């Protein structure tokens, strides 16, 4: 049996996204415990801001590497560099909101 057939299976992509979804749930549950441990009290809007920031990071990583994958290396690096820097700045601002004395 040719092993490459397994990688061409149409079931792999849905399985991949199901695993990714599971990892996301674990990540958010873990984040909840970590925030509690760090003494950071979270409200619904803080969770919302954190989730938005996290989604933004994901979109930028996905967008940048998609461009690189499509042989637009310069555009991809530019995208990652510019918007990645913006997300780092926003992340620092978010951290200040989450932990004002940190």
């Amino acid at each position, binding site marked *: 049996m040719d092993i490459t057939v397994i990688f061409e299976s149409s079931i792999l992509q849905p399985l991949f996204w199901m695993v990714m979804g599971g990892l996301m749930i674990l990540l958010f549950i873990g984040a909840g415990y970590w925030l509690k441990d760090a003494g950071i009290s979270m409200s619904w809007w803080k969770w919302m801001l954190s989730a938005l920031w996290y989604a933004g990071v994901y979109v930028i990583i996905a967008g940048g590497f998609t461009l690189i994958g499509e042989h637009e290396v310069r555009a991809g690096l530019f995208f990652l560099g510019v918007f990645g820097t913006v997300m780092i*700045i926003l992340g620092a601002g978010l951290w200040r909101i989450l932990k004002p004395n940190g």
Partner: protein
Amino acid sequence: MADKSYKRNIIIAAGIIVLIILANIVGSLRQTASEQQLIESVFPPGQYSLHKENDNKWVIYDNNRDKPGFLYAGEGRGYNGMVGVLTHTDTTGNILGLELASHSETPSYIDRIINSGLLTQAGNINIREFAYDEPLDAVSGATITSNAIVIAVRHSYLDSEGLPREPFSGIVFGLNELFVILIMAAGASLAYIRPRKLQKTITWMLVVFTLVWLGFMNNQMLTLTRIAAILSGYLPDVTRELYLYLLLGGSIILILIFRRNVYCHSVCPFGSAQELLARVKPARSFKPSWYRKWKWVQWSAALLILLTAIAMNNPGLAQYAVFGVFFQFTGSTILFMILFVTIVLSLFIRRPWCRFACPIDGVFAYVRAFTGFSGASRQACKIKPDGTKSRKSCFI
């Protein structure tokens, strides 16, 4: 102690003058390509034959002695020096091609001009249209260089045909100049304003205004390349860049009179950007034990690069600041990486670029050395009652 600092200031100031003169002598000794060599580099003698009509115009043929045309040579005032342009036309004056023959512009500006297609856009235009008009739009982010190209074509045509150049348009005192004066005055007054709240309000107004107006909207700031160009003897066009004279002259005068570096503290748009970033986290002041020694490294690097740029007749070499990258998105990959590191560091350390890398800080430190000639500075360098040296007016 006071005498020691005073003497050191005099030695440094005199040394800088001597070094700049020497660098200029080295620069003038460097062989520059003659006009003929520049033309032959673009139109090789093997493929073209040229017959000079006057100082600005040649009749040009290709090897088969057909397709005759004209070649015009002229110069316009650029960002760092004169921009030499060769214009190839047919016999009716329609432009066949524009070539940059010589320039000392910052490479990223030239890249921007080439990528914008400015040189190829001229292909459909008659050279006569350049006489008293501007048939090409300036390239955003390289306005001065693109204007210099248009003016070079215009002057080559007017001079070659014996036509009068456009009359001197006079010095324009516009909004930019007014704002530069107001910003400098506000920055200088900060030290004398006592109510803390008012001082804070003015500081934040300056931060926002310099960042938006001077930085993002007009990209008007002091760079080492401009200072290298000026020290090489190239004076920017006062009719178009009066603000630069006000910015540089005002900063130097304020240092010489009040011994305060108002530009770096209150005017520099990149300093304002770092100040804003410092408020995000908020950042802390970082002054390691080796800070004062590092200052000498920072300032020496600025001086070394400045002298190299002057000696090489190429002010563009002095571009290692990240201002252009931040405000115009132009520059090399290395500069983009330096900017990234600077921005991230600014979240944790107050003004890391100003304190550890900025060449302009070095330039003004050397200007501060010239205050050592005044008696007031001599007094101010004395030991304070608590045993420490007053550093306000001393070089370091």
